[in-house]
C-alpha cells in the first residue's frame, strides 16, 4: 500500500481532481437542464409537458454507460457521416460532462418538479390574484419554498453523480477509477489499489455530505 501511495500518490490526487472537475461541470449543467425540464413539466403547455416527459423517460431509461458511449463514439461518427468529414471529435471531458449532465439533469428535473408540486397551489393562486405573472410567481413565491424541500434530494443526487463519474472511465477520461485501472495494470496490486481508490472516494463523499447536512440545517432554520 505504501509503495502505491509513494509512487502513485500524486497521480491519484490529480485524477481525484479530474473526478471533481467532471462532477462540478456536470452538476452545473444538470441544474440548468433540470430546471428547464422541470418547468416544462409543471406548466400547462401540453407540448412542453410532452417534451419534458419524453426527455426524462428517455434519459432515465438508458444506462449511463450506454449514454456515454453514444455521446463519445456515436454522436461524432454520426456528425462526421453527415458532413462527410472526420474532423468532429469530442474530448472525453466534453462527452463525459454531456452524458453526466443529461443523466443527472433528468433526475434533477424530477426532484425539482416534485419540489414545485409540493408547494401548496394556493401560493401560486394568491400570487396570481395580486397581478403577478406566472413567471414572477414561480420565481418569487413558489421556487423559494420549493428549494427548501428539494435540498436533501439534490444533495443526494450530487453524491450519486460524483460516484457516477467512475463510469466514465470507459471512455478513457483520466478520473480516479481510470487511474486505479492504470495502476493495477502496471503493479498488479489489485487489493491495495482498489482499497486506496475506494477510501479516496469515501473521504470526499463523506466530507461533502457532512457539509451538505450543515447547509441543509441552515436552510431549514428560518422555517
Amino acid at each position: 500500500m505504501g509503495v502505491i501511495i509513494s509512487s502513485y500518490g500524486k497521480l491519484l490526487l490529480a485524477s481525484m481532481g479530474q473526478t471533481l472537475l467532471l462532477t462540478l461541470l456536470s452538476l452545473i449543467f444538470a441544474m440548468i437542464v433540470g430546471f428547464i425540464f422541470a418547468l416544462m413539466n409543471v406548466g400547462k403547455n401540453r407540448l412542453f409537458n410532452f417534451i419534458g416527459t419524453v426527455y426524462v423517460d428517455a434519459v432515465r431509461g438508458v444506462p449511463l454507460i450506454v449514454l456515454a458511449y453514444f455521446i463519445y463514439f456515436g454522436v461524432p461518427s454520426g456528425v462526421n457521416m453527415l458532413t462527410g468529414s472526420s474532423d468532429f471529435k469530442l474530448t472525453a471531458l466534453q462527452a463525459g460532462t454531456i452524458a453526466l449532465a443529461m443523466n443527472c439533469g433528468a433526475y434533477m428535473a424530477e426532484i425539482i418538479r416534485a419540489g414545485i408540486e409540493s408547494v401548496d397551489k394556493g401560493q401560486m393562486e394568491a400570487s396570481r390574484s395580486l397581478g403577478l405573472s406566472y413567471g414572477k410567481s414561480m420565481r418569487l413565491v413558489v421556487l423559494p419554498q420549493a428549494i427548501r424541500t428539494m435540498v436533501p434530494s439534490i444533495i443526494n443526487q450530487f453524491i450519486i453523480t460524483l460516484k457516477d463519474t467512475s463510469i466514465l472511465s470507459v471512455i478513457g477520461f483520466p478520473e480516479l477509477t481510470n487511474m486505479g485501472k492504470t495502476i493495477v495494470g502496471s503493479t498488479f496490486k489489485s487489493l491495495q489499489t482498489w482499497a486506496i481508490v475506494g477510501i479516496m472516494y469515501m473521504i470526499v463523499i463523506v466530507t461533502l455530505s457532512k457539509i451538505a447536512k450543515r447547509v441543509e440545517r441552515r436552510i431549514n432554520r428560518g422555517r
Partner: protein
Amino acid sequence: MADKNIKVHVEHLKKNFGKLEVLKNISVDIEEGEVVVLLGPSGSGKSTFLRCLNQLEHATAGTIIVDGHDVTDKHTDINKVRENIGMVFQHFNLFPHKTVLQNIMLAPVELKKMTKEEAEEKGMRLLARVGMDDKADAFPSQLSGGQKQRVAIARALAMNPDIMLFDEPTSALDPEMVGEVLNVMKELAAEGMTMAVVTHEIGFAREVADRIIFMDGGYIVEQGTPDEVILHPKEARTQDFLNKVL
C-alpha cells in the same frame, strides 16, 4: 355618486370541471360600492363563481366584464385586471418565506406600482388599519389564523384594488377569531369598497350585505336584500338551507 356604475357584469356564465357542470347559467351585475354576499350549500358553485371573476378558474362559456375589461377574452391582459381585484382566501395563502410586511410589499414593488419606501409606508398603514402593525416583522407561521387573515386582507388592499373578493374568509378560523376578521371586512364595506363575499356567516350577511345571492346546484336560486332573502325567502330551497344553518 355614480352608484349605478357597474363594476362586474356576468352574462350566461358556465363552468364545467370535466363532465361536472358547476356553474350552469349565471348572469349577475355588481355595482360600484355594493356588498354582495353569496350564500348556498357546499358544492353550489359559490366559490367557483368568485374564482371565475379573476379567472383563477377559466369560464367554459359566457362573458365576464370587470372594470370594463372582458376577462374571458384571451387578448385581455389578465394580470393588469387582477391588480384591481383583491382576493382573500379561506386558507390565507400568505407567503411563508416572507415577513408580514414583505408579504404586503411584494406585489406593489414587483409590479412597479410603488417604490420600496412607498410600499413600506403603505404596508405599515394597512397593517395599522387591520391592527397588525406590531407584527410587521413576524413570519406568517408565528401568527394565529385570525391574524393571518387580517394580514392577507392588508396584502390584497396594498394594490389599491377597487373590488375585493372574499372566498370563505372565516371558514378556517377558530370561532373566537371570526369576529376580528369580520370587523375588518365591515369597516371595508363601510368605506364603500365593492365586495363579493362567499361566507357561511349569516349574521354578517344580514348586517353588511346590500344584496344576498342564494345559489344552489350551479344556479342563482334567488337574490335580494338581506331582509328579503334571509327573513322572507321565497324559494323552498332557500328556506330549507336557512332552516339548516340558522
